[in-house]
C-alpha cells in the first residue's frame, strides 16, 4: 500500500507547482496526535505538553537540548539539601489580565492531586514536595522530603495556572494532605473554555474542536519575545499518508514525523526537511533474573541470557550501521549509551562494533557452540520502523547461531505483555523526559522493587546492587559535577555488564514550508511558538 502510494507521489509531485502559503500571519501545523485535554495538569503525556506549552509556562523550561532555563522564575538556588528558593519574574500577566505572583505557584502545585480521573497524574513531579511557601509575592520557597537535585527539571513539567481563573481564595496554604483556600477547583472539561484555560504563555486558547482543530491567538501582553504568528492552527492528522498529502496540498505549512519512506518525495516537492537527534534510545532488554525464562529452547532448561558472554555476543552480532542505513534511512545514530552524548550524565562511550566472529566465539565459550532458539518481542507501531528493526536484529542473531523469532504486536498489546514478563528478550524505546541519565537508569536497569517504585520498566529484571547504590547516591547529590560523575559511573557499570543493549538513538524529523524555520528539539516536541519565519 505504502509503496503504491509512494510511487504515485513521485509521479505527481513532479508536476506540482509550488504554492506559497495563503496567509503569512497564520501558522498551520499537522500533528500526529491530538492533545487529550486543555488542562495542563490532566494527562502527563508528550502530546499534551507540546501543545499546552504555547499557553502555559512553568517556573523553569527545557530548551531544545533539554537544558533547564529560566522561565517564570528568573533564578533559583539550593539553600540547603532540601530547600530551594525561586525568584519569580516580575511584571508577568496572565491572559485574563491578572498579575502572576507566588500565589499562583502555590495554587498550581496544590491543584495537581485534586485533578479527577487523571489517566497519568502529574503527582510524580509534586510527590517530593514537603512544603511550598511564599516569602513575598515574588519569592517561593520549596522544601523537599529528601534531597532532590532534579527539582528544577521536574517543575519545568508543571505549567503555572491562574489562581484567579480557578476561583481560589486570597490566601492559599500548601499542605501535603491537601491545601487550604483552593475554592472549587475547575476540572479537565472546564479547560476547554478560554476563560479557565488561562496561562502566561505567548498564545491564548481561542478554540478547541476535538478531532478537528485547535486555534491559538497571540497574547499581546506576553512578557517575552513575541512569536511571529498572529494565530496558530493545529490539526490532528494521525495517518502518515494523509498528513504528507495535507502538507503537499498546502493545507498545512508544517508536519511532524513524516514517514521516512516519503522524505525524498517531500524534498522533491520543494519542502524543507529538518531533523535532530532525539533523547529516545531504542534498546534490547534481556531476562536475567531467572533460569526459567519463557520462549527459550535448545539450552537444556538453562537461561543463556544470565551469562554476560551471551549478552555481549548479542550486542556484537548487531550491525548498527546497517540498521541505520538500510532500515532507518539514515535517520538514526548507532548508540553506545542510554542517552545521546553530550547530554547530562553521558560518558561518550562508542557503540559496540559489529563483530560476528567474536560473537560466535563468545557463544562457544559460554557453552552454546550451536546456539539456541529465542523469541524477540517488539511493538509494531510505536517507534520508527520498529518491526523492521526487530526483524533485522533477528536475522543478525540467527547468523551467529541464535535462532530468533520475532513476535511483533501493536503497542497496547506489547506493553501489557512486556510488563507481564512475556518475552525473554524485547526491543523497546525510552525517552528521557528529564534529559539526563538518571531517567533511563532509574527506570530500565535499577533492581525491580515494587514497594520502593524502582525499576518499573526493568522487564529484563537486571539487578546490580553496586550500581543501585551509586545511582542512589547520584539521585541525592545536589552538586551537578559530582552527580554527573556518579551517573557516568553507574551507566558504565551497566553497559560493561551488558545489562541492557543500546541499538540506536532515533532522529526526529519535521517537514515544513521553506518560508519557515524550526530549531529541532531532542524531546521530539513540536512547539508552535518556536516556529519562526525564515530569514530571507
Amino acid at each position, binding site marked *: 500500500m505504502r509503496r503504491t502510494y509512494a510511487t504515485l507521489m513521485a509521479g505527481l509531485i513532479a508536476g506540482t507547482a509550488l504554492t506559497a502559503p495563503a496567509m503569512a500571519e497564520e501558522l498551520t501545523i499537522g500533528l500526529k496526535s491530538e492533545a487529550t485535554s486543555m488542562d495542563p495538569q490532566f494527562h*502527563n503525556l508528550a502530546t499534551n505538553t507540546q501543545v499546552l506549552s504555547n499557553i502555559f509556562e512553568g517556573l523553569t523550561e527545557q530548551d531544545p537540548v533539554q537544558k533547564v532555563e529560566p522561565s517564570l522564575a528568573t533564578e533559583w538556588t539550593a539553600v540547603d539539601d532540601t530547600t530551594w528558593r525561586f525568584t519569580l519574574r516580575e511584571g508577568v500577566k496572565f491572559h485574563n489580565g491578572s498579575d502572576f505572583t507566588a500565589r499562583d505557584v502555590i495554587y498550581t502545585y496544590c491543584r495537581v492531586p485534586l485533578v479527577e480521573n*487523571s489517566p*497519568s*497524574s502529574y503527582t510524580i513531579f509534586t510527590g517530593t514536595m514537603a512544603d511550598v511557601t511564599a516569602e513575598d509575592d515574588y519569592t517561593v520557597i520549596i522544601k523537599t522530603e529528601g534531597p532532590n537535585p532534579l527539582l528544577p527539571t521536574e517543575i519545568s513539567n508543571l505549567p503555572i495556572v491562574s489562581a484567579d481563573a480557578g476561583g481560589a481564595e486570597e490566601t492559599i496554604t500548601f499542605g501535603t494532605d491537601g491545601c487550604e483556600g483552593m475554592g472549587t477547583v475547575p476540572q*479537565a472539561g472546564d479547560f476547554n473554555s478560554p476563560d479557565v484555560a488561562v496561562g502566561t504563555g505567548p498564545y491564548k486558547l481561542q478554540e478547541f474542536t476535538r478531532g478537528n482543530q485547535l486555534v491559538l491567538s497571540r497574547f499581546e501582553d506576553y512578557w517575552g519575545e513575541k512569536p511571529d504568528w498572529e494565530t496558530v492552527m493545529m490539526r490532528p492528522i494521525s495517518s502518515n499518508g*494523509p498528513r504528507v498529502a495535507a502538507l503537499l496540498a498546502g493545507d498545512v505549512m508544517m508536519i511532524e514525523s513524516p514517514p521516512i519512506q516519503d522524505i525524498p518525495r517531500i524534498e522533491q516537492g520543494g519542502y524543507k526537511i529538518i531533523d535532530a537527534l532525539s533523547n529516545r534510545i531504542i534498546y534490547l532488554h534481556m531476562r536475567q533474573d531467572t533460569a526459567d525464562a519463557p520462549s527459550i529452547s535448545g539450552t537444556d532448561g538453562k537461561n543463556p541470557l544470565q551469562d554476560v558472554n551471551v549478552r555481549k555476543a548479542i550486542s556484537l552480532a548487531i550491525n548498527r550501521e546497517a540498521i541505520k542505513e538500510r532500515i532507518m534511512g539514515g535517520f538514526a545514530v548507532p548508540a553506545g549509551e542510554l542517552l545521546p552524548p553530550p547530554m547530562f550524565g553521558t560518558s561518550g562511550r562508542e557503540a559496540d562494533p559489529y563483530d560476528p566472529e567474536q560473537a560466535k566465539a563468545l557463544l562457544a565459550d559460554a557453552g552454546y557452540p550451536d546456539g539456541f532458539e529465542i523469541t524477540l518481542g517488539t511493538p509494531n507501531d510505536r517507534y520508527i520502523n520498529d518491526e523492521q528493526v526487530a526483524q533485522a536484529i533477528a536475522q543478525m542473531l540467527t547468523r551467529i547461531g541464535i535462532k530468533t523469532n520475532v513476535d511483533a504486536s501493536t503497542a*497496547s498489546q506489547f506493553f501489557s505483555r512486556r510488563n507481564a514478563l512475556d518475552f525473554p528478550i524485547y526491543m523497546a524505546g525510552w525517552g528521557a*523526559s528529564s534529559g539526563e541519565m538518571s531517567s533511563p537508569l532509574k527506570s530500565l536497569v535499577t533492581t525491580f522493587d515494587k514497594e520502593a517504585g524502582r525499576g518499573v520498566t526493568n522487564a529484563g529484571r537486571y539487578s546490580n546492587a553496586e550500581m543501585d547504590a551509586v545511582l542512589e547516591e547520584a539521585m541525592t547529590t545536589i552538586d551537578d559535577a559530582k552527580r554527573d560523575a556518579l551517573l557516568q559511573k553507574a551507566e558504565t557499570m551497566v553497559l560493561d555488564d551488558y545489562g541492557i543493549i543500546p541499538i540506536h538513538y532515533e532522529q526526529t524529523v519535521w517537514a515544513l514550508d521553506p518560508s519557515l524555520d524550526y530549531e529541532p528539539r531532542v524531546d521530539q516536541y513540536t512547539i508552535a511558538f518556536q516556529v519562526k519565519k525564515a530569514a530571507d
Partner: protein
Amino acid sequence: MIVYLVRRFGQSLLAIAAMAVLVFVGVYAIGNPVDILINPEANQAEIEATVARLGLDKPLWEQFLLFVWNALHGDLGDSFVYGRPAVEIILERLPATMELAFVALILSVGIGVPLGVLAGLKPDSIAGRSIMAGSILGFSLPNFWQGMLLILVFAVLLGWLPAGGRGETVDVLGMQLSFLTLDGLRHLILPAVNLALFKMSLIIRLTRANTREANLQDYVKFARAKGLSSRRVVLVHILKNIMIPVVTIIGLELGSMVAFAIVTETVFAWPGMGKLLIDSINLLDRPLIVAYLMLTVFIIVTINLVVDVLYSVLDPRVRLSEVKG
C-alpha cells in the same frame, strides 16, 4: 401487526444484550489500558493508584455488572483518556459523521438509482455497459487507496479542494453542521464521494437487476400494452416495485455508513465517530470503545427495526403473513 412489532422489538433487545457481553469481554481481552496511558516515568504506587482510580482492579464480572447497572441508568462510563462521559464525547462527534453519511447516501441513491434503472432498461447499450463497468471499479477499489487517490488528484495535483479536515461549521439547533457553508461543502465533497462510491455501485447493480426482472413481468407488459407512456411505466410501475430491496439495502448501508465510515474518516482526518473509535482503540480507552460499539449496535438494530416496519407498510404480504403466523 402489533404481535409482529412486539416480537421484532424483543429480538432487538436480545441482540443488544448479546452484543453487550461480547463487546465487554472482547475489549477486556485487548490489554491493560494503564500500560499505555500512564507516563513511563511513573512509579509502581502511581500505577496502582491509577488502576484503582479507573476501576480496573475489580474482577471482570464485577466490572461488567457495574457497567450493566450504570448502562441501565443511562451512563456508559467515563472515558479514561478524556475524563468525561463517553457518550457525551461520542455525541459531540455524531453530527460530523451523520452529515457525511447522509450526503454520501444522497449521492449514492441520487446517482445510483437512475443509473441502475437506465442500465436495467437498456442492458446492451453502450451506456448500460459503461455503467456496469464503472460499478465494478467502485466495488473493487480499496476504500483507503481510492481516498488517497482522490486527495492526490483533487487536492495535491489540481489544488481544487482541501486534503482533509472539516470546514467551517454553523450552529443549528445545538448541532455543528458544515454543509451549510461554502468552506464546509468544499471539505465535505471528497470524503462524501469516497464514502458514496462503493454504495453507489451496490445500488446500481441492485437496481439494474431488479429493473430487468420487473421489465419482464406481466404487469409491466400489460401497462405498456395499455399504451401508457414509457415514463409512467418506469416511474410508477417499475420503480415502485423495485424499491423494496433497495430500501432494505439503503437502511442497512446507512447504518454501516454511520458506524463504520472509519476508513474514510481516517484518510480525510474527518472528526467523526469512526476516527474517534480508531484513536480510542490505540489508547485502549475501554469505556469509549464499549460505548461506541453499544451505540452503533443500537443504531443498527433501530434502523433494521424501522426497515422491517417500512416493509410491512410497503408490502401488504409481509403484514398479512405475519398476522397469520
